[in-house]
Each structure stands twice: as structure tokens, then as C-alpha cells.
């Protein structure tokens, strides 16, 4: 009986339509809400209990079209036809009705039950747009529900509608193309009736005429003779229209969307110059825009550093006497000191990493929610082209400053395989917050803030050179930038709060166990007296070539787990966080450089593996390790003259 009370719904829509807000509101699962097109990359799942029903909600990536172009679109289309959800909730950006409807028309072709959520109605109102819902409802023959997802308005109505229509799913109207196209579709569907693919026959026919490569492949495996027929029909269409058949169909579809929009949308007041427009004029200005960007990003890093420094030393004074307390109350037997090693690792993590990571995430999510990150992509596009990728590559880069793992995952917003690989490769050179902990906590604190900034600059130059080199090696032309520019909006504090908390939680849950385990292991190795052996084994590299204390060999091995362990373990092992007692300035800089560029951390390696396969991943790891050791050794020799 329980099965009857279960409903599956899927959220689909174009990037920036507010799908993630709908999802968060419905499921209470606070996931990432982006402010750029196509941000949500992974399929997210949540459950809602409502009026005795268990409703599973799936969030699909933001997509523009169901004709495959990027990975997200293939995922979405396959998901809808294979999982056969009870309803697809098409979240629509009301301020962009015409463009949104192009996607809606394609969803209708999939012949799945849909409900339209006309979202961001408040913004549409501000722009003077009024929409006739009833008319839209009767044109497409699907329920249309007005919503303002950011404030939860209208979302309960969607679910009520889902429950109401659960038993008698509506039969939607299907968009009709022009006569010649309909004729072709009809001829093809006749052959497609018994093809046994999960897609509707009409959908397959349309996609064949659009020369969709995935569908073509599917048909080739079942009934290759149909392809001959479709090629001939495409040829006919092309002869009549003088354009590629896919363009003919896309054109008709968008004209249909434009026509519907004209019928239901009224723009009453002339758009006045809004604050967003004025702000945009400054922040995307040819010259001023770059100064603003440097100011904002520079301000971001300076405030992260100064806050982190203050917070870190404040925490230091709190934890100061804990070690003595442990020794006098628990003792310093073998197990007691293992226990203390575990506690101290956590304390060091809290004291060294948290103070820098917390403000970084708050500021990053503030900029993202505000809409500024898309402006950076716009401003940086030209420069990024030199690295063989376009401006959107900035997004993984900036995320990479927080953590390389989501940075590498964000590379999926790049359109081609080539761009995804180059971008991910470059992200591994970006100093993540863990590496920033080393840069700021070691070099920034004990050498000088200028040197710390210099290391950042060095990393950026290296990214640039690596990008230029890898685009030469990988070859191919960079894909051109096409991106939606979101309006500036008042950052939603709750969203920033959730995003920061999520990122922090993830960081703590991934980091803490690794830190505790490695803290115990390193202490056990130490107590067993093996430290010397491992250190001296690695000493030709660490001591002779890099001029570092032998202990760093072990630290660099643990650093593969998480980079900040290098510093955390250094503190734990030396029993002090005052590193200037044990390391000279050039040693700190050399250690920072090795830590920045040698093998990526395990979490990043696992993402690279998943995305690009083990061959490329292994190549990256080996090349980066050798390169970093070589580079740091050379720089050490230069630094010998400086200090």
C-alpha cells in the first residue's frame, strides 16, 4: 500500500531560472545555489513529506536545449526518459519568457507530464512584465503556477497540483511545426513505431531531423535503414529552406516560442535605468571594470588574511595550556600521547585552517549570489583565451581558490572535453584554502605578507604559462564564450549562510578524520622510532636538493592526504606553532612552493580520475611532483642570494 503514496518529480529548466531555490525550499536540503547559467552540475535528490505523500524530488542541471551539446543535457534527457518521473516541473525564468519557452517546447516533445512554474515573478513585475497564465495554460495544455522561489511563494501550489493530477495526468498539446517539417516527421514516425527505444517516436523523428548525434547513434544500433530515410528528408528540407535542417527546426521552434510570448506577455512600462544597470556599467566598464575587479578580489584576499591572522592567534591563546593539562591529568604513556596527538591534530586544524577558510567562503558566496562572478568571466575572457579556454573558466579557478575538488567538478560547465581537461589541469595549480593556510600561516606570518602575495602572483603566472603550454600541446581551437549575464540582485543572507555552512561542513567532515588518523599514525611512527629512517630515505630530495629539514619528507607524504597537514603536522611534530624557531625564511618559501605545486591532494586526484581516467591523472601527478621539486630547488638557489 505504501507504494501508492509515493510520487517522483523532477525539476528541469534553464540555468539561472531558480531551480535550486525551488529544490531547497521543497526538500530542506540546503545545496548550492549558483548565480550563473548552468551552475548546478550534479543531479541532486531530496525527499519531501507532504499530506501523507512521500515525494522524491530530483534536481537536474540547468540546460538550454534537449539537443545534446554538453554533458548536462545528455544527463537530463536520459534521466527524464529512463526514470519516467510522475511529473517534470519546468522552472521558468519569467523575465526571460521567450527563451524559456523554447526549452518548454522541447520538454513537451518528450511527452512527459509537465507542470510549469513561472518563477521570479517579482523580478518580472519590477521590469513591468505581466503574463497571462491562463492563456499560457490553455496554449500548452499544462498547468502553469506562478512562483517566487527565493521566498517560497507558490511552491506549495505546485505540490498540491502534483497530488491533484497524480491519477489523471494531463495530455499536453504538442507543438506543430510547419507543413514540410510535419510531413517529414510523419514519414519518419511511421518507420519508428516498433523501434523499441525509451524515447517517443515523434521525439526521435524530430531529433533525427535535427541530426542529434546521440539519437542517431541509438537508431543506428536498432534500425539503420531509417537513417537513410532521414538523411533524404533532411536533404529535402535543406533544399527548400537553403539552411541546415537542424537550423530550420530550431528556427521554427523559436518562432513558435516568440509567437506564444507575444500572445501572453505584456510589457507595460518602459524599462528605466535600474541600479543593476548602473552598477553593471561600472563593473563591466572597459577600464574601470578591471580596477574594480582588482579592488574586489584584492580586498577579498586582504580581509581573509587579516581576519584569519587575528582569529588564528586568538584561538592560539585559548588552546595554549591544553597540552599541559593533558599531560598532568591523563599522563604521557604510549596511548595517552597517541590520544593527545589526535586531539592536537584537530586543534591545529581548527586553529590554522578554519580562520582562513571561513571568511573566504563567506565572501565568495556573497560575490556569487550578488552576481559578480559572471562579470569576472566577462572581463577575463580575453586573457583566458590565451590559455586556450574562455572566460567561464574563471569560475572553476575562483572556486579552486576555496578548494580544488569543487573547482575540478565545476569544469563541467566548459563545453568541450578539451576545455574541461585544460581547465581542470590548471585548477590543480590554483592555491586552494588549504594551501593558503600554508602560504599565509607560514610565509605570510613569519616572512612577510608581500612574500605571501608574491607566491599567489607566482601561482597565477604559472597557471598562465601552464595554460598556454597545455593548449599548445592539447591543440585545437578554444570554444567561444556564450554566457548569460545575470542581473545584480541583493545577496540573500540565508543563501550565503547555507552555502558557507555546507562548504565548511564538507571541509570538516572530509578533513577531520584524515587529520586525526594521520596525526595518530605520525605520532605512532614517531614513538616507534621510524621517523629517522623515512626522513633519511627522502633526504637526498628534501635536504640536499631543497635545503629543508629532513622531517619535511614525511610531511609532504601526509600532505597528499590534505595539503594543510603539512603545516598542521609540522606544528604537531615540532610541538610549536611558532615556525620561525625551526625554519629559516627561505626554507619556509621553498616548503610553500613545493606544497603548492606537487601532487594534488587525494580528494582532487580522485575527482580527476573520475573525470578524465587514470592515464591522464597519473600523468598529471607525476609531472606536477617532478616539476614542483625541480622548481622549488631552483628557487631555493635563487633565494640563497636574496636572504
Amino acid at each position, binding site marked *: 500500500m505504501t507504494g501508492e503514496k509515493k510520487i517522483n518529480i523532477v525539476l528541469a529548466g534553464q540555468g539561472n531560472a531558480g531551480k535550486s531555490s525551488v529544490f531547497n525550499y521543497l526538500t530542506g536540503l540546503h545545496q548550492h545555489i549558483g548565480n550563473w547559467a548552468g551552475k548546478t552540475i550534479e543531479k541532486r535528490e531530496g525527499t519531501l513529506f507532504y499530506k501523507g505523500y512521500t515525494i522524491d524530488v530530483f534536481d537536474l542541471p540547468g540546460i*538550454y*536545449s534537449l*539537443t545534446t*551539446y554538453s554533458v548536462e543535457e545528455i544527463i537530463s534527457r536520459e534521466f527524464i526518459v529512463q526514470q519516467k518521473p510522475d511529473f517534470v516541473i519546468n522552472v521558468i525564468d519569467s*523575465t*526571460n519568457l*521567450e*527563451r524559456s519557452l*523554447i*526549452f518548454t517546447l522541447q520538454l513537451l516533445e518528450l511527452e512527459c507530464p509537465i507542470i510549469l512554474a513561472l518563477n521570479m515573478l517579482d523580478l518580472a513585475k519590477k*521590469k513591468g*512584465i505581466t503574463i497571462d497564465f491562463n492563456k499560457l495554460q490553455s496554449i500548452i495544455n499544462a498547468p502553469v503556477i506562478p512562483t517566487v522561489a527565493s521566498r517560497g511563494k507558490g511552491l506549495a501550489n505546485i505540490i498540491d497540483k502534483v497530488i491533484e493530477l497524480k491519477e489523471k495526468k494531463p495530455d499536453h498539446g504538442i507543438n506543430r511545426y510547419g507543413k514540410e517539417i510535419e510531413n517529414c516527421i510523419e514519414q519518419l514516425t511511421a518507420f519508428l513505431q516498433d523501434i523499441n527505444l525509451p524515447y517517443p517516436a515523434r521525439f526521435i523523428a524530430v531529433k533525427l531531423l*535535427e*541530426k542529434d548525434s546521440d539519437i542517431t547513434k541509438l537508431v543506428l544500433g536498432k534500425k539503420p535503414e531509417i537513417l537513410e530515410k532521414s538523411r533524404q528528408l533532411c536533404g529535402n528540407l535543406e533544399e527548400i529552406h537553403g539552411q*541546415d535542417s*537542424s*537550423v530550420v527546426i*530550431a*528556427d521554427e*521552434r*523559436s*518562432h513558435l516560442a516568440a509567437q506564444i*510570448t507575444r500572445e501572453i506577455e505584456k*510589457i507595460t512600462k518602459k*524599462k528605466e535605468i535600474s541600479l543593476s544597470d548602473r552598477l*553593471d*556599467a561600472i563593473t*563591466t*566598464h*572597459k*577600464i574601470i*571594470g*578591471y580596477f574594480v575587479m582588482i579592488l574586489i578580489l584584492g580586498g577579498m584576499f586582504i580581509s581573509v588574511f587579516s581576519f584569519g591572522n587575528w582569529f588564528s592567534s586568538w584561538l592560539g591563546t585559548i588552546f595554549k595550556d591544553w597540552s599541559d593539562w593533558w599531560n598532568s591529568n591523563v599522563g604521557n604513556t604510549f596511548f595517552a600521547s597517541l590520544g593527545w596527538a589526535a586531539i592536537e591534530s584537530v586543534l591545529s586544524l581548527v586553529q590554522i585552517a578554519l580562520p582562513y577558510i571561513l571568511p573566504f567562503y563567506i565572501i565568495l558566496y556573497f560575490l556569487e549570489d550578488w552576481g559578480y562572478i*559572471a562579470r569576472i*568571466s*566577462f*572581463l577575463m*575572457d*580575453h586573457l583566458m*583565451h590565451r590559455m586556450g579556454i*574562455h*572566460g567561464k573558466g574563471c569560475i572553476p579557478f575562483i572556486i579552486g581558490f576555496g578548494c580544488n575538488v569543487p573547482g575540478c567538478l565545476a569544469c563541467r560547465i566548459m563545453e568541450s572535453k578539451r576545455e574541461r581537461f585544460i581547465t581542470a589541469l590548471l585548477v590543480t595549480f590554483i592555491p586552494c584554502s588549504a594551501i593558503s593556510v600554508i602560504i599565509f600561516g607560514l610565509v605570510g606570518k613569519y616572512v612577510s605578507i608581500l612574500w605571501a602575495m608574491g607566491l599567489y602572483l607566482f601561482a597565477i603566472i604559472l597557471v598562465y604559462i601552464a595554460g598556454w603550454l597545455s593548449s599548445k600541446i592539447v591543440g585545437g581551437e578554444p570554444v*567561444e*564564450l*556564450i*554566457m*548569460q*549575464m545575470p*542581473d545584480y540582485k541583493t545577496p540573500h543572507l540565508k543563501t550565503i549562510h547555507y552555502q558557507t555552512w555546507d562548504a565548511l561542513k564538507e571541509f570538516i567532515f572530509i578533513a577531520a578524520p584524515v587529520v586525526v588518523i594521520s596525526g595518530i599514525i605520525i605520532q605512532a611512527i614517531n614513538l616507534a622510532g621510524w621517523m629517522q629512517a623515512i626522513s633519511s630515505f627522502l633526504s637526498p630530495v628534501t635536504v640536499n636538493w631543497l635545503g629543508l629539514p629532513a622531517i619535511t619528507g614525511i610531511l609532504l607524504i601526509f600532505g597528499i592526504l590534505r595539503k594543510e597537514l603539512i603545516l598542521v603536522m609540522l606544528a604537531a611534530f615540532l610541538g610549536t606553532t611558532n615556525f620561525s624557531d625551526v625554519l629559516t625564511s627561505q626554507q619556509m618559501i621553498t616548503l610553500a612552493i613545493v606544497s603548492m605545486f606537487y601532487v594534488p591532494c587525494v580528494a582532487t586526484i580522485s575527482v580527476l580520475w573520475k573525470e578524465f581516467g587514470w592515464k591522464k591523472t597519473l600523468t598529471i601527478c607525476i609531472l606536477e611532483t617532478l616539476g614542483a621539486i625541480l622548481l622549488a630547488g631552483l628557487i631555493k638557489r635563487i633565494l640563497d642570494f636574496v636572504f
Partner: protein
Amino acid sequence: MDNKQGITSLADIKDGQSGIIVSILGGRILTKRLSDLGLNSGTEVKIIGRTLFSGPIQIEVSGSRLVIGEGLASKIIVQPK
């Protein structure tokens, strides 16, 4: 007002000026992609601004903003208004 009435590429019209798309010189995938974003022949496009050198162009299409690369803009043929 500009006197020139001849068609030109989107990359060649000035900031603040509008044009109506006449055709798109590109392959199937590109045309499709632009079409999904609402850029078809017959659509009116307004140039909002661009970055230094040969950077990307910010445009306004049916009330919303898009950013497109310079090379792409040069493949979009428009009739200036």
C-alpha cells in the same frame, strides 16, 4: 544616426547600437546553440558594451543579457538599425 544601411557583423557595430540578425555564419551546432539562447534571424540585438582589445561583447536580447565571444559575434550578420 548612422547613414550606412548595409549589413555588417555584430562585432562591427558600436556600443549602444542595435541590429536585427540577418543570418548566422556557422555550423549546425553553433546555430543551434545560439537559437536556444534566443538568437535567431529576425531577432533584435543591442550591444551593451565590450571589454578592452578584442574581448567578448555584452548584448541584450529580448530583455535579457548575454555575453558572447568576439569571434562568435563576427559570425552573426546583422542589419544595423
